């Protein structure tokens, strides 16, 4: 695509120089580190016997072993990741409106579609980086607290499931890019993300049978974080998930191409 490489260069520079990149890296590393701390506290309940809140939180962890710990990592990347990755998408697309720099991108020899796709690539790489940090720091924190059940085979399997869950979650973020354009900033896409999380919780709890067909429930089902009794995914589930991602991207491209850019 004409202009894609220069658009990719400029989007990379903008992302690299932003404080938001550093903040998201620190938050994801902190979250992963906190997991290790939770396991440590679960292993030493006497340290938090005076704190009901912490005792409750650590008891939610269940068994403090590696299989349980990895499931917690999948849950984080599927649920918290949706918010975190969604924020990355909303920032990359929405900042042009909140910084009012979008005008500079609209009447250029580089097609608008090249800019939209370059932003998508940068957002995807950024989210993959956060996922890698979450997995590596999380695993390192787990090793530090010395849990039972570690094996290299288990770690590889966890890496595969974690990667799949993260990628699926990233695919579901493309509608956020559309809402960043539609809402001309951050608020609408963040509102969209919160709404989606609430709707997913309610819909899947009320009618569990729809979970394999509800795009935002699919990563959790794939990872097994939804529990052993959860519905199984079929080919249609993956088609629905990919279609959601394609619809989000198509909507964003059409918005940048045809909507009035005020």
């Amino acid at each position, binding site marked *: 695509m004409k202009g894609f490489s220069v658009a990719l260069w400029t989007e990379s520079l903008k992302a690299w120089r932003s404080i938001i990149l550093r903040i998201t890296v620190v938050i994801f590393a902190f979250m992963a580190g906190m997991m290790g701390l939770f396991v440590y506290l679960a292993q030493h309940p006497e340290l938090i016997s005076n704190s009901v809140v912490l005792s409750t939180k650590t008891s939610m962890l269940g068994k403090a072993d590696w299989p349980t710990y990895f499931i917690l990592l999948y849950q984080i990347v599927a649920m918290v990741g949706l918010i975190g990755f969604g924020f990355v998408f909303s920032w990359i697309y929405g900042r042009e409106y909140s910084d009012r720099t979008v005008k500079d991108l609209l009447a250029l020899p580089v097609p608008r579609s090249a800019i939209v796709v370059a932003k998508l690539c940068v957002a995807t790489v950024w989210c993959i980086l956060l996922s890698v940090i979450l997995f590596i720091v999380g695993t390192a924190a787990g090793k530090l607290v010395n849990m039972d059940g570690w094996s290299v085979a288990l770690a590889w399997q966890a890496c595969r499931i974690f990667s799949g869950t993260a990628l699926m979650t990233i695919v579901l973020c493309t509608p956020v890019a559309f809402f960043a354009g539609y809402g001309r900033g951050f608020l609408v896409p963040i509102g969209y993300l919160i709404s989606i999380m609430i709707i997913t919780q309610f819909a899947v709890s009320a009618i569990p049978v729809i979970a394999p067909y509800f795009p935002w429930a699919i990563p959790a089902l794939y990872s097994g974080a939804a529990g052993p009794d959860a519905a199984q995914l079929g080919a249609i589930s993956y088609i629905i998930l990919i279609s959601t991602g394609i619809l989000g991207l198509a909507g964003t491209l059409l918005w940048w191409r*045809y909507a009035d850019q005020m």
Partner: protein
Amino acid sequence: MEKIIETNHLTKKFGKFTAVDDINLCVRKGEIYGFLGLNGAGKTTTIRMLTGMIRPTAGTAYLNGQKVTAGNSHLWEKVGYLVEVPYSYPDLTVRENLEIIRRLRFLPDDSTVDAIIEKLQLGQYLDRLAKNLSLGNAQRLGLAKALIHNPDILILDEPANGLDPAGIVEIRELLRDLALNRGVTVFISSHILGEISRFATRIGIIHEGRLLRESDSAELERLRRRSLHLNMTDKDGAKSFLEEKGFSVSGVKEEFLEITDRNAINDPGRVNAMLVQAGFPPTMLKIEEEDLESYFFRVIGRNGGVQ
């Protein structure tokens, strides 16, 4: 001369509100077209349609003979623009902001950035983050982005905003040089009417979305009201004498007499000689020319902005 910017029945409605109503413009090569209007008159909406940022509800805009559409990216290779307040990426330096535009405009020569930095006198702010620039320097950076590729067409919305008086003169001279010596076509909107009158070769006045009048500089000169102001010791006697001679003295004001006859305005020396010979020697004689501001308000039917 070649038509560079043209609109045919250009109209934009937002719901029931008509922001721009059936505008037909034509700007020829090398012209500096001043686009004047009050806030909300439709200047920026017109400019946004000219730059493909919003789609007309009806009508068409052409640049260099090509229809303006969001998908026609080739169109922008020779167009520079600045729409409203220019904003830049706050976390990037002046150089990085310009480097981004250089690449997005496929300019192969690295030195392009240095050249425009020198031209807009941004050298001392080269490594300063855009968020730390003053309003005037942010405006200069916006102009640098518009000019970096030596465009054939410049579309500028209030480019003098935030500039100090020296900066305004500098930009005026720069634009005049581009138009006169390089044949660049400049479409410039502004509310600083006096400033526009100094260098625009044509002026269009837009009010409530409609283009009320277009005039070139010669026509503008003719359309602006001129009058001969005279003062002398015996104003009543002089008025009677001038009226006997066939001049229309539009009114005796406290300080001076005012004649609007074209003959008197074109030959004030003759009027002076007649008055001296008749024993009414003028103590003051001058031709007053309506400034662009007064002309503008007269055209839009307002008095100093109050209806």
